[in-house]
């Protein structure tokens, strides 16, 4: 039982990171119907930038508490990633808005290759350790342990998600975003500046990705120029699992995927009598994804897409 609880906790932590990244995918998809393949790389850039700042601060011997150092890192990473997201949309997606669907997909892949290799040129090929500036405290609950870092990740991402839901549902900008997602033409006729709304979507999504990137690198204590790829893939799967284009779906999908993955990795060995080990973790995630989509092709919370002839 305590193993179960432990895996659920680990899954929730992983899942809240997935959810943050998945929100970026789902927001962009909801408005442009575009898989923003470069989104995982934005997460990576967020992690790398914050890590550089944190290392510099920790190395310079500034008298700051560890939390403040990490916070400074986050606050640097967010604007950098926002700028990056904005420029990517401007350079690679906006010129192709009337092009066939696959054209922006290719530029997205191109951008993602560029970002990966640029990061490799700047930060090198090796794994970069996260400096141990945070004091880790362990708490016992029901036989399982949870660290203060894990609690911080869950709480912070919950705050970010609540903030986003508030933004989308209660503010003027959010209303404009929802209108644009429903029908760009009509939204435009109602006086919504579609281009700036799309830019805003990319900027917000990239900000969330930056936070997620910092969380992942702090949690695992590592960052790597290639880390965005699998993270982005999982997060996109989470978004699809929840029903792409649906904010609540992305959060639910992210949390579910995280929990399923860590439970699967924890129990798959026992379930199959040692035939399949925990290195099948990724198979598990994708297998669940395929199953869900086969039985519910529009995702858990997605609406049935009516074919527009």
């Amino acid at each position, binding site marked *: 039982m305590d193993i179960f609880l432990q895996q659920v906790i680990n899954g929730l932590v992983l899942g809240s990171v997935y959810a943050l990244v998945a929100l970026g995918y789902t927001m962009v*998809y909801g408005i*442009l*119907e*575009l*898989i923003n393949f470069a989104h995982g790389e934005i997460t990576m850039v967020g992690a790398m930038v914050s890590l550089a700042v944190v290392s510099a601060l920790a190395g310079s011997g500034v008298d700051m508490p560890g939390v403040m150092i990490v916070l400074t890192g986050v606050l640097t990473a967010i604007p950098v990633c926002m700028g990056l997201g904005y420029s990517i949309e401007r*350079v*690679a997606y906006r*010129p*192709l*808005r*009337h*092009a*066939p*669907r*696959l*054209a*922006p997909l*290719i*530029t997205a*892949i*191109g*951008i*993602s*290759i*560029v970002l*990966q*290799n*640029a990061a*490799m*040129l700047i930060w090198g090929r090796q794994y970069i350790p996260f400096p141990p500036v945070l004091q880790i405290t362990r708490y016992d609950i029901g036989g399982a342990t949870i660290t203060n870092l894990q609690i911080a990740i869950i709480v912070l991402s919950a705050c970010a998600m609540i903030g986003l839901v508030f933004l989308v549902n209660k503010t003027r900008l959010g209303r404009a975003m929802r209108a*644009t997602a429903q029908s*760009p*033409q009509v939204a*435009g006729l109602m006086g919504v500046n*579609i281009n700036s709304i799309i830019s805003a979507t990319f900027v917000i999504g990239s900000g969330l990705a930056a936070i997620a990137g910092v969380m992942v690198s702090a949690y695992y204590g590592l960052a790597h120029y290639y880390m965005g790829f699998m993270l982005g*893939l999982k997060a*996109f*799967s989470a978004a*699809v699992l929840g029903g*792409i284009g649906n904010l609540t779906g992305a959060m639910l999908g992210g949390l579910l995927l995280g929990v399923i993955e860590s439970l699967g990795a924890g129990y798959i060995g026992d379930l199959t009598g*040692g*035939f*399949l*080990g925990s*290195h*099948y973790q*990724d*198979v598990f995630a*994708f*297998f669940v*994804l*395929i199953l869900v*989509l*086969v039985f519910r*092709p*529009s*995702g858990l919370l997605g609406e049935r897409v009516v*074919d*527009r*002839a």
Partner: protein
Amino acid sequence: MRAAIEKFLTLAKKDRRVAWAAFAAVAILLAVLPMLVDMGLGRSWVRVLNFTLIYIMLALGLNIVVGFAGLLDLGYVAFYAVGAYVYALLSSPHFGLHLPFWFVLPFGALLAAFFGVLLGAPTLRLRGDYLAIVTLGFGEIIRIFLNNLNAPFNLTNGPQGINLIDPIRIGGVNLNQTTTLAGIEFQGGYLLYYLFLALTIAVIFVCMRLQDSRLGRAWVAIREDEVAAAAMGINTRNVKLLAFAMGASFGGLSGGLFAGFQGFVSPESFHLLESIMILCMVVLGGMGNIAGVILGAVLLTVLPEALRYIGEFERAVFGQIIVDPSDLRLLLFGMALVIMMLFRPMGMLPSTRRAREFEADDAVLDQERASVYDSQR
């Protein structure tokens, strides 16, 4: 460029001699290409040439699924992996099996087609990006299994991959070695080139015949509008499954050739990035157009190799190597992808149907511009 080609084509239609001359010129060029490449660029480029042929076959296979039938497949490399591993397992010391090439290759293609149906059957109801993500997951699953199936019994030898695969032999001649046939000495890799070329031409021929066949037209109908296609009496289930199976069998075929050519397979060669690369070839060249897809495959195979020379370029311009060329190579490649796509979003050589969609008359164009995204629906 396009106008010149069309002018030539009408000329060739009028005068058969022109057509025959052009045909003969191309045939001679293809026949002596490995020698020319070897002399002009060096032995390593003969290898690139052979890889280009493999990628042309792969891209044409994916073109059936994505270009003709409009089913976005991001896990295509799984079929390539199936073909390669079938060859590797049945024709290497790993199991001590050394079955003949002419059995292993079709068997690999057949098994890949079976896997294609296996992937296609549960995903028939999925559309667009949902299909994309499921195929992507399928590709990853296959790769992870290849990576881990060394226990409890050693099927794939895990991440180390399978070594010492038998080279391709036809009639007792090892195509990978320098051989003297009928008094002419063929360097290693030349004979392989001729085999690959013959198979590529066969694949191109099949694709061209498929394109205008009843089946090919059914694929296009499904791509344009599935509901309408079903209403016209097309059995969309069977036709879609056939697209998956045919595309996959080409993938399996090229996989087998890859294993025999390389002598070594490992899960690393079948990464998602490889699927994406093949998709880029199809889209960049011009989806649905056979000539375009071939052009895309050639371009995207040769470009990364050509970018290996940037080290020499740096030395010539700056007098020293500033940035490690192997680090810079992929960066430039990514930029090239973006730039090429921005300048020709419909691909280098789009099919006439797609080109027409782009050069639509003003009324249609206005209507399409009105939509912020996607003019495809």
